[in-house]
């Protein structure tokens, strides 16, 4: 087995025993990137020189006897919407094409402190707006399992890089499913933590009440290890929760005794791929065999989630993206005739079509005369969706669903119809509206050998039960050991 194929915990053990070095691991990953990047195109920026220097520094620490950090010397990719000091952070947008942040996002600083190696900044949908990574302002990323298909989005580059072994683990961000849906499409593990669990400081804002950073990894143990590094209160993010983060590796338990799992009937709908339905039901039977108590639950407002989301997320985006005005950083149109012309043309030339569409929708929803009918109504619907989960979690500890109604679709299949694209997020969006945590992990393959994702949801700040269930399932199955042929 090549070093690039291994997990964080395997490599950490090898480093501890002196069986390999961070330089060897990093070189292995960089060679892998050279070999397959032409096909997959996961990265906007590969930081080879920085990675080598950080690997050398990690090896020095290890040589001096410091092996306490499980991330020490491990190559990690960080989605290109998280600020990396001195390293281009484009958000896959032309408007930030030449932006070099003067500071690190808190998660980046924490990973650096843990001694991890930054191997690159993966591609994404521009400003994290999309479900396929086709909305990148630069290029399309391809699904390592089938190069004619999308890797999911918006963290498509992060998921593809993990699946193609172009990094050992990665960070993504999730506003409406942007970690979980690409994890499902690429057959990797992706966790969206509870809103407030991980600092958003230095994450380029899309919809501030919904955005959350989380890990994408090759297995659930690695998810726990990355969570141990990035979780926790940050005074620089006023919405980060002042709640101590647990040791998530303590939740890695092999049986499900005592855990109650709910199946919401609203997530097993017509129009869903029967192969997805079958795989998820089979996965739930496995959880039951491991000792979980399974029952039906209802989340009656599920069908309103997509509509609610596309009002609230676009409203927040229209406000957040007002800062791109061609003054302080980012793109400015050539020879503006006055200030207004500079704003109007810089934004028109700098933003791609999906971003403009969402700014327009959000601006409309917030504009005079429509605020009550759209924005306020959306916020009230959000309350009802949140109450559904509060009610369900009175009788169950976890909720199991498919992550997406289908496996990865073909490139171009949905790009002409924005509404069809939005509906591919139907099973992931409610989670962001309610703030709760959710994981996606592989639970089977379609006849075309495309990965299928199982989504497990938990109560606010109970990532531990999710990690517990995901680990127990993973250890009882072999889906996570399969790799795409590239």
């Amino acid at each position, binding site marked *: 087995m090549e070093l690039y194929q291994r997990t964080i915990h395997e490599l950490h053990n090898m480093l501890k025993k002196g069986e390999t070095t961070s330089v060897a691991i990093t070189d292995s990953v960089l060679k892998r990137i050279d070999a397959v990047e032409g096909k997959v195109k996961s990265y906007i920026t590969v930081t080879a020189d920085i990675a080598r220097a950080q690997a050398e520094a990690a090896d020095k620490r290890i040589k001096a006897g410091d092996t306490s950090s499980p991330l020490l010397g491990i190559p990690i990719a960080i989605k290109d919407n998280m600020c990396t000091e001195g390293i281009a952070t484009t958000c896959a947008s032309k408007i930030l094409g030449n932006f070099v942040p003067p500071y690190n996002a808190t998660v980046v600083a924490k990973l650096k402190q843990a001694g991890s190696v930054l191997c690159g900044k993966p591609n994404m949908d521009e400003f994290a707006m999309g479900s396929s990574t086709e909305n990148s302002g630069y290029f399309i990323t391809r699904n390592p399992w089938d190069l004619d298909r999308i890797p999911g989005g918006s963290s498509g580059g992060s998921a593809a890089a993990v699946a193609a072994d172009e990094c050992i683990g990665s960070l993504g961000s999730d506003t409406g499913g942007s970690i979980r849906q690409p994890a499902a499409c690429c057959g990797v593990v992706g966790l969206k933590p509870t809103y407030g669990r991980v600092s958003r400081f230095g994450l380029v804002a899309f919809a501030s009440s919904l955005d959350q950073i989380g890990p994408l990894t090759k297995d659930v143990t690695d998810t726990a290890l990355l969570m141990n590094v990035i979780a926790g209160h940050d005074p620089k993010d*006023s919405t980060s929760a002042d709640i101590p983060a647990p040791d998530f590796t303590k939740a890695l338990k092999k049986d499900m005794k005592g855990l109650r799992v709910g199946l919401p009937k609203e997530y097993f709908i017509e129009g869903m791929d029967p192969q997805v339905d079958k795989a998820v039901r089979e996965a739930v039977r496995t959880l039951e065999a491991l000792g979980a108590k399974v029952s039906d639950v209802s989340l009656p407002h599920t069908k309103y989630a997509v509509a609610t989301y596309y009002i609230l997320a676009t409203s927040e985006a229209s406000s957040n993206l007002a800062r791109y005005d061609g*003054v302080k950083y980012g793109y400015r149109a050539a020879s503006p005739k006055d200030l207004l012309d500079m704003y109007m043309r810089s934004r028109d030339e700098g933003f791609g079509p999906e971003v403009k569409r969402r700014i327009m929708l959000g601006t409309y929803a917030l504009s005079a005369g429509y605020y009550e009918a759209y924005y306020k109504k959306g916020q*009230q619907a959000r309350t009802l969706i949140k109450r559904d989960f509060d009610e369900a979690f009175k009788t169950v500890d976890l909720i199991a669903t498919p992550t997406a109604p289908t496996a990865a679709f073909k490139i171009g299949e949905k790009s002409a119809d924005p509404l069809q694209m939005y509906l591919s997020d139907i099973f992931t969006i409610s989670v962001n509206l309610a703030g709760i945590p959710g994981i996606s992990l592989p639970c089977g393959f379609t006849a075309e050998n495309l990965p299928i994702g199982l989504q497990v949801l938990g109560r606010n700040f109970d990532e531990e039960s999710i990690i517990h269930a995901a680990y127990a399932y993973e250890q009882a199955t072999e889906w996570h050991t399969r790799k795409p042929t590239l």
Partner: protein
Amino acid sequence: MKITKKEVEHVAKLARLELSDQAKDVFTDQLSNILTYVEQLNELDTKDVPPTSHVLDMSNVMRDDVPQESLSQERALANAPDKAAGHYRVPKIIE
């Protein structure tokens, strides 16, 4: 709900987006479709339902007002498309 091209032009101006004529036509159709879809929220009785703007049980977060190190002027200006004499430079706004 159908929106008109004129409304699209108005919203584009509010959003400071100089849209091409073709983009205005496309957005008129697409935004009408999305707004029609969103109208299903009107089925919900929300008379006594409080709005949720934020899921965490917290209000204003304050910190002590202690001077701290901040970005230097040079670093703060490093990404500016145009700058002069320690300031961001923009097109003339006063005649």
